[in-house]
């Protein structure tokens, strides 16, 4: 089960560039939340602030409060602890090419020293089933490298890898933008299936995708959160003129 995320007055910078400006929002637990907006609007930076990946860039800096459940992630914990609780899926599939499929999924637990083989087997199978990949790879779990499968399968492998540590939150930064429509559909199915069990935040360029998978949608523009509302409202009756312009394709 996931936890909710409360963001208050979040500001982020890349060097002198102010990429996130005073963003506050409440992402409900166990739902999917989509973030949309034109390129460079700060939505990717925003999700990277949610697991403190933003600060891995040497010139980057973030200020503000992000609460996951009871935990203030910028005060109460180290980035390492946060990232153990928050799964992340990137735009391009990034399985570890030198590891087998099995080891890819188990990597999050193994690197933390988890050694119980029986539990690992279970976790790997469950995660791969959750990612709807089990049937396609179950025969070569330890034979094939994580990079030898197709792009869509690799992305589902990355989702399985993120799920294997039983995260409370799953962040997805344009998880389907590098994939073909069939793989995209599979990923969307997955998000649909997983969202009752995890808090999912998905950045997407594809508005139909946001409409299809997310209960709530936030619209970012030039580092600001312009509007955050139930997806139906954003796409049918947005309260901000800029949101309307964007979703009707008048700019961006």
């Amino acid at each position, binding site marked *: 089960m996931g936890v909710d995320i409360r963001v208050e007055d979040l500001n982020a910078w890349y060097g002198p560039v102010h990429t996130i400006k005073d963003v506050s929002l409440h992402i409900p637990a166990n739902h999917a939340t989509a973030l949309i907006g034109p390129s460079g609007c700060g939505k990717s930076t925003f999700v990277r602030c949610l697991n403190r990946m933003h600060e891995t860039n040497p010139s980057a800096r973030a200020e503000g409060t992000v609460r996951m459940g009871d935990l203030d992630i910028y005060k109460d914990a180290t980035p390492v602890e946060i990232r153990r609780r928050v799964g992340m899926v990137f735009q391009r599939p990034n399985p570890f090419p030198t590891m087998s499929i099995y080891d890819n999924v188990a990597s999050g637990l193994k690197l933390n020293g988890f050694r119980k083989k029986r539990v690992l087997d279970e976790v790997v199978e469950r995660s791969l*089933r959750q990612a709807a990949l089990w049937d396609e790879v179950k025969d070569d779990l330890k034979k094939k490298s994580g990079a030898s499968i197709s792009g869509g399968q690799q992305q589902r492998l990355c989702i399985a890898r993120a799920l*294997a540590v039983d995260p409370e939150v799953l962040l997805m930064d344009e998880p389907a933008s590098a994939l073909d429509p069939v793989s995209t559909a599979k990923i969307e199915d997955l998000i649909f*299936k997983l969202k009752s069990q995890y808090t999912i935040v998905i950045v997407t360029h594809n508005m139909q995708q946001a409409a299809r998978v997310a209960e709530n949608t936030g619209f970012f523009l030039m580092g600001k959160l312009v509007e955050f509302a139930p997806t139906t409202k954003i796409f049918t009756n947005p309260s901000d003129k800029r949101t309307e312009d964007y979703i009707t394709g008048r700019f961006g």
Partner: protein
Amino acid sequence: MNEPGIIPLIQTRVPQQREPDGTEVHAPAVPSVIRNFLRAKSSGRIADGAFAGVMVLCALSIFAIVVLIVFVLVSDSRLSIHASGWKFFTGQIWDPVSGDFGALPFIYGTVVSSLLAVVMAVPLALAVSIFLLDICPKFLRGPISFLTELLAAIPSVVYGLWGVFVLVPIIRDQVGPVLEKYLGWTGFFVEPNFGVGIFTASVILAIMIFPVISSISRDVMRAVPVNQREAALALGATRWEMIRISVLRNARMGIVGSVILGLGRALGETMAVTMVIGNHPDIVKNLFAPGYTLASVIANEFTEATGDLYLSALIEVGLALFLVTIVVNAVARLLVWAVTRGNTAGAH
């Protein structure tokens, strides 16, 4: 803006709650074994801190080593520094018997032979790297790169022997006359040519530093992303144009790095150079004339250095070699910086 359907809101896909085989898959119950396990793990603060500390120590040890080397060189050559002063670096007479210690001919020999070696080795090395990456048929690639790396493993005294018995006669009898005939007017290639001299030393050095430059620049060029090559090819670039605008441009910092590494090796190379350079402290334009390098004079005279001043002067020669290396490297980097300045792309 009250017409729905601009963005279709129909959630087209029915959520599959069941796997094809009928089993339902759920996230583990809370609190799960995995979450408890991960919560119990340390934050990594101490381990990461310790790791960072060890790394910082290792990095600082480099400073310590350099400082120590400079300290020892300076303190052991104090006698000579006091006796010769700046004349050590400007004087052209090296006469231990009468106490004249001018190291300029050695500095000249070192710098000229190394630069000449780089000039000869770089085009060859880059050509070999490009050939291996883009042109070479597959079955030749392995053997050629293996042999290239083998060149780097040959001890320098063996190069020296080969130089004395093979290269010296070739340069004296075959290459020398040709160069003299066509390039004699420049004043760089003038008889008499005994085969031993700065030119021969440079050729040996070029062969010795070629593998370093070639293998490093090949690795750098190989790291250029395929999409950069494809971007150029898709614009209609020929193979050479593609190599020039995407491979060489993207890899240039690494290539410069490999050249600087090769230059460093050439400046300090002792044995092979000593065997073919002629060991005569002279500053002449003629590259066929014998020369002397800083490293060679230390190797040749250290065992026979009688008297504290002589020994101290040789250690100061070491200090000079150290300074020459630093200055040459600094100048090389400065040149690169000047060339790439204002051209932010790839300038790191």
